[in-house]
């Protein structure tokens, strides 16, 4: 881990010193030991703030969109899952390849902050987290607590498809074993949900959607959401004046419509980075929605996980005579 961080800092400092990029978007230490925070280094000195580890869940690719209309060159640190989002943005011409330096990091899995914090006894202060490879040691002012790392692994990591970046100009470390585990079928939960009858599905999602705060964190963290103006915020065009899209009304139907529209809009774009689910403050299992889309796109159109390469075409932006349909 230490070498990766050193390599990352060295490369970032080199890029910044040589003016090859104006900014390196990476991770820096957070305000407590169980988190990191996005870091925007613009000088070689600031490159020393960069860090890397199992608490870097944020998908930083989203931030590229903030700079898409500028003419500066940027570098961004990506994990395997994040790197799919890079390909997606390149494919959608949301960011030009020549203005981008991709700094890849080998990822052995990311940890769930909430599960870590739940192990800290009341009154104890988490001071550091040590990663011994197999075990994770939570260092507190009241003593050291050791746990198998798996205990804190994020759900998405059990089903990791690519723990090494699928696109990178610089790799900060040697490949590491994938955190993916046997027995975690990619679609297991989706299959389970599909098996329910429609009334049970309805009540399951009613329960989830009714808790939604409509804070839009899922959308704002989502690298697939690259629209300059989101449909939910459009100045209402005539045809939907009495419609409900874009309303801030928090009610079950409004919330359900919000999520259903999002589900449809990320088809062929969602790279399953899991940011939506991570940022949701009320714990809505959003990946269960978007993984359904991934599964159906795979079955109906033979589409793989978006962003695995820049060659694949999104199933909804291509017509093939043999596409399944029922409307002709």
């Amino acid at each position, binding site marked *: 881990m230490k070498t990766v961080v050193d390599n990352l800092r060295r490369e970032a400092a080199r890029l910044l010193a040589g003016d090859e990029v104006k900014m390196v978007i990476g991770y820096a230490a957070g305000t407590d030991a169980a988190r990191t925070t996005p870091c925007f280094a613009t000088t070689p000195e600031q490159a020393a703030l960069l860090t890397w580890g199992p608490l870097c869940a944020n998908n930083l690719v989203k931030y590229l969109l903030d700079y898409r209309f500028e003419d500066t060159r940027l570098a961004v640190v990506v994990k395997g899952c994040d790197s799919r989002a890079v390909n997606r943005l390149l494919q959608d011409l949301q960011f030009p390849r020549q203005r981008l330096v991709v700094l890849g990091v080998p990822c052995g899995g990311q940890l769930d902050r909430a599960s870590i914090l739940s192990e800290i006894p009341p009154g104890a202060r988490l001071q550091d987290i040590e990663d011994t490879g197999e075990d994770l040691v939570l260092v507190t002012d009241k003593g050291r607590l050791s746990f198998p790392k798996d205990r804190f692994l994020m759900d998405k990591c059990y089903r990791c498809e690519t723990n090494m970046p699928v696109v990178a100009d610089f790799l900060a470390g040697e490949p590491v074993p994938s955190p993916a585990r046997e027995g975690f079928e990619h679609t297991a939960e989706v299959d389970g*949900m*599909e098996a329910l009858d*429609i*009334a*049970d*599905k*309805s*009540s*399951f*999602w*009613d329960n989830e*959607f009714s808790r939604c705060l409509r804070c839009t964190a899922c959308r704002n963290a989502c690298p697939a959401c690259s629209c300059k103006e989101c449909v939910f915020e459009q100045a209402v065009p005539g045809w939907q004046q009495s419609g*409900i899209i874009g309303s801030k*009304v928090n*009610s*079950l*139907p*409004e919330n*359900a*419509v919000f*999520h*259903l529209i999002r*589900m*449809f809009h990320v*088809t062929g774009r969602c790279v399953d980075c899991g940011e939506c689910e991570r940022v949701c403050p009320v714990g809505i299992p959003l990946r269960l*929605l978007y993984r*359904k*889309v991934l599964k*159906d*796109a795979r079955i*109906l159109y033979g589409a793989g996980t978006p962003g695995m390469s820049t060659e694949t075409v999104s*199933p*909804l932006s291509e017509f093939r005579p043999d596409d*399944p*349909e*029922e*409307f*002709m």
Partner: protein
Amino acid sequence: MLFKQMMEYVGLEPDRLQIRWISGSEGAKVAEVTREMTERIRALGPNTKMRDVK
């Protein structure tokens, strides 16, 4: 088709969505499909899931 499967997944009757390809010259088909759709929706009853406070 994808969207109908999504609807079903969140518990909406997929029959509430119908997409038909009808050319500008097929007036009779429009009438027929509309009639069929209307009956289908009648049979499904009101869409209570999407009903709002109004």
